[in-house]
Structures are given as structure tokens and as C-alpha cells.
């Protein structure tokens, strides 16, 4: 190896290390931003290394150089402008679009390398190249078209409801079989050129057919899955061109993306199989947000862990606690106050919203809170609470149900007209509850299946103790308060 080649190899290794560190740091809110920065530095190192490599080898065709530089410059501008301008609410579809182009790039790398004349004829490729080419084109093209459809669904360009049509499943299976057969033909060297084209087209069609039948609510999980597929396609591209940094980073994203997909599906209370079977399963009743809900189906609630809620609470500006009878029944007042004290030490403003009928008698809850030494200035009545809730980051509902039921605003409902606390006006809602059962009024509570609501299923006292421990664990490294506690 020449000195330049050695430097390039070492830089590639450094980039791989930075990618691993970066993804690792993305797991915690404290280090996440630094993690993303580390990955970006890794990308810079990898690009610098490849620049040196190309300059060192020399002899680049002028047209190739022009297209290369023009492509990189245009892509960089397009990517940064899109990333800066997109509204926060539209970010999932933007990530999906970035995944689209990533998959497309991975497939194109294999196509260009295999047929661009560098290895001689396409039909004479050794198996060690043609097999990864086949896999790369299949995976890359599926994620290209699949992510494009997913982005379209989230944006509303493609209907978000599950789109099924007769023959959809056999068509998917046929396209998959066609793509596999074409990649076998490519590996065998039979009609290699047409085989590569057929494989790419079949895979593009397959990506569309796989994502169309999946409902818009499941799209984040689907995007995460396609993200993992792109990672694997990039690793295949690395095998094609014998480049370690592509193999490492691609496999890293492939594996971590697969795990993340599992975690996301679990957090949404959906099984991954049920999500994908929008495409491969019976397709009889995929639940979508737009479709009529089957009244017998269990509500699609999002169940989370104490660690998840702790992050939400610790990083909120304002938390409004809505206590209900469940809190009193579990004798959880002291645990609640301990949690609130911990949060206030972190600079979070905590207020208590007490519904007139919270507890078992009017004013019951105020007494219970006073007993636990909650400063009364922090306790808000119905009107005061409903003025604050739209500005709150998190509404933490503890053992309450009917007093936060949005159905009460519907005059035709049995509790219609009852004044309620507008928990659903807060940016996010956390419901701490023993089970998914009904409240006193025996009604379903649409608040629980609101997409912004997370359910923490536990007894109020143990749940609040767990939350405080989780918040403590988050705050541990920074023992000093981030800002002075608010004057009460």
C-alpha cells in the first residue's frame, strides 16, 4: 500500500468508529445531539478519504468529473434546503424521502459498477460480485419506490388509508419471484443486461405494492423498516465495490434499524407482522386512521414505559398533573409530590389541575393534595387549568378517567355537558392508570387512543415512584439544577 492508500484505509476505519459512537449517543436525550454531530464528522472523514483516493488514482474522465461534482453539489444543496425548510410536523415524510434517495443511490452504485465497463462484460462477473449486485439492486429499488410511496402517504399525496385491490398479493409475490429469477440469471451470466433491467423494474413495482396496503398510522414503523433495508443495500454496495466503510456503516444501520423498528412497533402497541401483513396477510381489515373503527376491536392505545415518560417530563417546560380517584385509592399522593419536587429541581413548572368531582366528593382532591403539602398556589381549579393546559407540554393524568373524557363535549353522549379538564389540549398526554378498563361512567375514553397520548399502566403509587426513579436517573449526571427553581 502506498502512503495515500494507508491514510485512506485508516480514515475509513475512523469514520466507522465515529458512526458507531454517534449512533450509540443517539440513545439518550442528553447526548443525542452530540451523537448526530459525531456521525456527521464521520461522514466528513469518509468523504475526505474518498476524495484523496480518487485524486491519488487519477485519470478521471472529464465528463465523469463534471457529473460527479455537479451531482454532489446539487444533492448537498437540495438536501440541506429541504432539511431546513420543512416544518417539524412534516419531518417523517422528509426522512422517508432521504431514505428514498439513499436506496436509489445504493442500487445505482451496483448498476454503474457492474455495467460501467470497469469489470469488462456484465455477463462475465464473478459470483462474488454478481450476487451482491443482485441483492443490492433488489433491496435498493424496493426501498426507493417503497419509501417514496410512504412519504406520499404521510404527505397526503397518496391516500393514507390502506389501499388494497384484488390480486395485489399474488402480484407482489409474482414480482418478487421475477426479481429473484432475474438476479439468478444475472449471476449465471444469461442475458445479464436485460436481467439486471428486469430485476430493477420488478423490485420498483414490488416496493409500491408492499407499501400501498399499509395504513398511514403505521408509516413511521414502515419507514424505519425501509431505513434498515437501505442500510443493508448500502452494505451490499460495499461488497460490490470492496469498500469497508460502506459495508460497516450499511450493516450498522441495517441491524440497528431492524431493532429500532421492533421497538417502535412495540411502542405503538402493534406487532411488526400485523403491520407488514397489510401487504402480505389476509388484508381483510387493516386498521387505518381513515377507516371506520370496528367497535369491538381493542382501542389502539400506545403503552409506554416509565423511562419513556421520564424523558417527556424531564424535558418539558410545563407539566400539568391531573389527579383522579385512582391516586387517592392507591395512596399515591406522597409519591406524586416527590416526583413533582424532582421535576421542579430540573426547572420544570408543575401545576395540579383539580376537577370539581375528582376524588369521591367535591374538594376531596384539594384536601388530599394539601395533606401531602402541595403549595396551594400550584393547585388550579377547572377554569384556571383549562386556561393553562393549551400551553402545557405534558398533561400527566394520574388515576383519572371521566374527568378528562373528551366525549363530554358531545351533547349526545351520556356524560355530555359535564365540564371536563381539556387534557387533550396539551402538547402530549400521559395517562398513568392501572388498566385499560373503563372509568366510573363505563364509557370508552377517546383520549386514550389519541396518537399524542401515551399510557403507563401501573398502580398510581408504584407508577409514580418508578417515574421519580427514572427522572432521577436521567438527571443524575447534572446534579446542579439547570436553572433556579421557580418562585412559587
Amino acid at each position: 500500500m502506498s502512503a495515500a492508500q494507508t491514510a485512506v484505509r485508516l480514515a475509513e476505519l475512523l469514520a466507522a468508529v465515529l458512526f458507531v459512537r454517534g449512533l450509540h449517543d443517539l440513545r439518550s436525550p442528553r447526548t443525542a445531539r452530540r451523537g448526530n454531530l459525531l456521525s456527521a464528522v464521520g461522514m466528513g472523514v469518509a468523504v475526505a478519504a474518498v476524495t484523496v483516493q480518487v485524486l491519488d488514482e487519477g485519470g478521471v474522465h472529464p465528463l465523469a468529473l463534471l457529473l460527479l461534482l455537479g451531482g454532489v453539489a446539487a444533492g448537498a444543496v437540495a438536501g440541506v434546503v429541504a432539511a431546513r425548510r420543512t416544518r417539524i410536523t412534516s419531518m417523517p415524510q422528509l426522512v422517508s424521502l432521504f431514505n428514498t434517495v439513499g436506496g436509489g443511490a445504493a442500487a445505482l452504485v451496483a448498476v454503474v459498477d457492474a455495467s460501467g465497463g470497469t469489470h469488462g462484460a456484465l455477463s462475465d462477473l464473478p459470483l462474488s460480485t454478481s450476487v451482491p449486485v443482485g441483492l443490492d439492486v433488489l433491496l435498493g429499488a424496493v426501498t426507493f419506490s417503497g419509501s417514496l410511496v410512504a412519504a406520499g402517504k404521510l404527505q397526503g399525496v397518496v391516500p393514507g388509508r390502506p389501499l388494497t385491490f384484488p390480486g395485489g398479493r399474488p402480484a407482489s409475490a409474482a414480482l418478487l419471484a421475477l426479481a429473484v429469477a432475474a438476479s439468478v440469471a444475472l449471476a449465471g451470466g444469461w442475458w445479464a443486461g436485460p436481467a439486471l433491467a428486469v430485476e430493477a423494474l420488478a423490485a420498483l413495482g414490488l416496493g409500491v405494492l408492499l407499501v400501498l396496503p399499509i395504513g398511514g398510522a403505521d408509516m413511521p414503523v414502515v419507514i424505519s423498516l425501509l431505513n434498515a433495508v437501505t442500510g443493508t443495500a448500502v452494505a451490499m454496495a460495499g461488497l460490490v465495490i470492496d469498500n469497508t466503510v460502506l459495508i460497516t456503516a450499511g450493516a450498522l444501520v441495517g441491524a440497528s434499524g431492524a431493532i429500532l423498528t421492533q421497538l417502535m412497533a412495540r411502542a405503538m402497541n402493534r406487532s411488526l407482522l400485523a403491520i407488514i401483513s397489510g401487504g402480505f396477510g389476509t388484508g381483510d381489515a387493516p386498521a387505518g386512521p381513515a377507516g371506520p373503527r370496528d367497535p369491538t376491536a381493542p382501542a389502539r392505545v400506545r403503552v409506554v414505559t416509565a423511562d419513556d415518560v421520564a424523558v417527556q417530563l424531564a424535558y418539558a417546560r410545563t407539566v400539568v398533573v391531573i389527579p383522579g380517584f385512582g391516586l387517592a385509592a392507591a395512596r399515591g399522593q406522597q409519591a406524586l409530590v416527590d416526583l413533582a419536587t424532582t421535576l421542579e429541581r430540573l426547572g420544570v413548572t408543575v401545576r395540579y389541575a383539580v376537577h370539581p368531582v375528582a376524588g369521591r366528593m367535591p374538594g376531596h382532591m384539594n384536601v388530599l393534595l394539601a395533606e401531602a403539602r402541595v403549595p396551594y398556589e400550584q393547585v388550579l381549579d377547572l377554569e384556571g387549568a383549562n386556561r393553562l393546559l393549551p400551553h402545557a407540554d405534558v398533561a400527566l393524568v394520574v388515576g383519572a378517567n371521566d374527568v378528562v373524557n373528551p366525549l363530554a363535549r358531545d351533547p349526545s353522549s351520556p356524560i355530555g355537558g359535564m365540564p371536563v379538564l381539556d387534557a387533550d389540549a396539551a402538547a402530549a398526554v400521559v395517562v398513568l392508570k392501572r388498566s385499560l378498563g373503563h372509568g366510573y361512567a363505563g364509557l370508552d375514553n377517546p383520549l386514550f387512543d389519541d396518537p399524542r397520548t401515551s399510557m403507563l399502566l401501573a398502580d398510581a403509587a408504584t407508577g409514580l415512584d418508578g417515574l421519580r426513579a427514572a427522572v432521577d436517573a436521567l438527571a443524575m449526571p447534572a446534579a446542579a439544577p439547570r436553572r433556579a427553581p421557580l418562585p412559587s
Partner: protein
Amino acid sequence: MSPSLFADTAVFVLALLVGVEVISKVPVALHTPLMSGANAVHGVVLVGAVLVTAAAEDWWAQALGGLACFFAAANALGGFVVTDRMLEMFRARSVPATGTPGVRGPGEVPR
């Protein structure tokens, strides 16, 4: 199996294991940023796009390579910038916020 293919395959398998290990417990609030961050990392395919374009001999292969460069650069740069924007919400606050409520916290992750 050539030694270089074996080495590449070994790297692939080991990197898969690292990928599984590196992601274990992630709070829900970070799911979307983590997905976005991982998405940016596979923009490293830019390295491959540059290499194959520089080596391509036919004009159409060079054109496809240029397209791959465009795609990959958008993926890599855009991915990191958008992830950073999401993570901005997790910055520790230095200003008391009582006077200006209504700014959404990280609890509301776009879904």
C-alpha cells in the same frame, strides 16, 4: 472464496452484531430522531457513488453515477441537518420559560 471477499463478509457480520448491540433501550421520544440519524449514516453510500462515477467509462454509466452522487449527497447532508433540527428540542433550557409557554417540548415527536 477469495481472502478479500472473506474479509469483507467478516466485517459485514461483525458490523451487524455491533448494530444490534448499540441499540438496546431507546425512549419513545427519541425513536424518530434515532431513525433519522441512522438514515443519515447510510448516506455514506456517497463514498461508493463517487468511486463508481470516477471509474465509469461509458457516458451513460457516468450519468447514472452522477445521479447516484446527487441522491447520496442529499441523503447524507439533509439527513444530518434534519436530525439536528429534531434534537434541538432536547437542548437544556437556560432561560426561565414561565413567561412564554406554548412552545412544544420533545414530548411531541412528529409521527
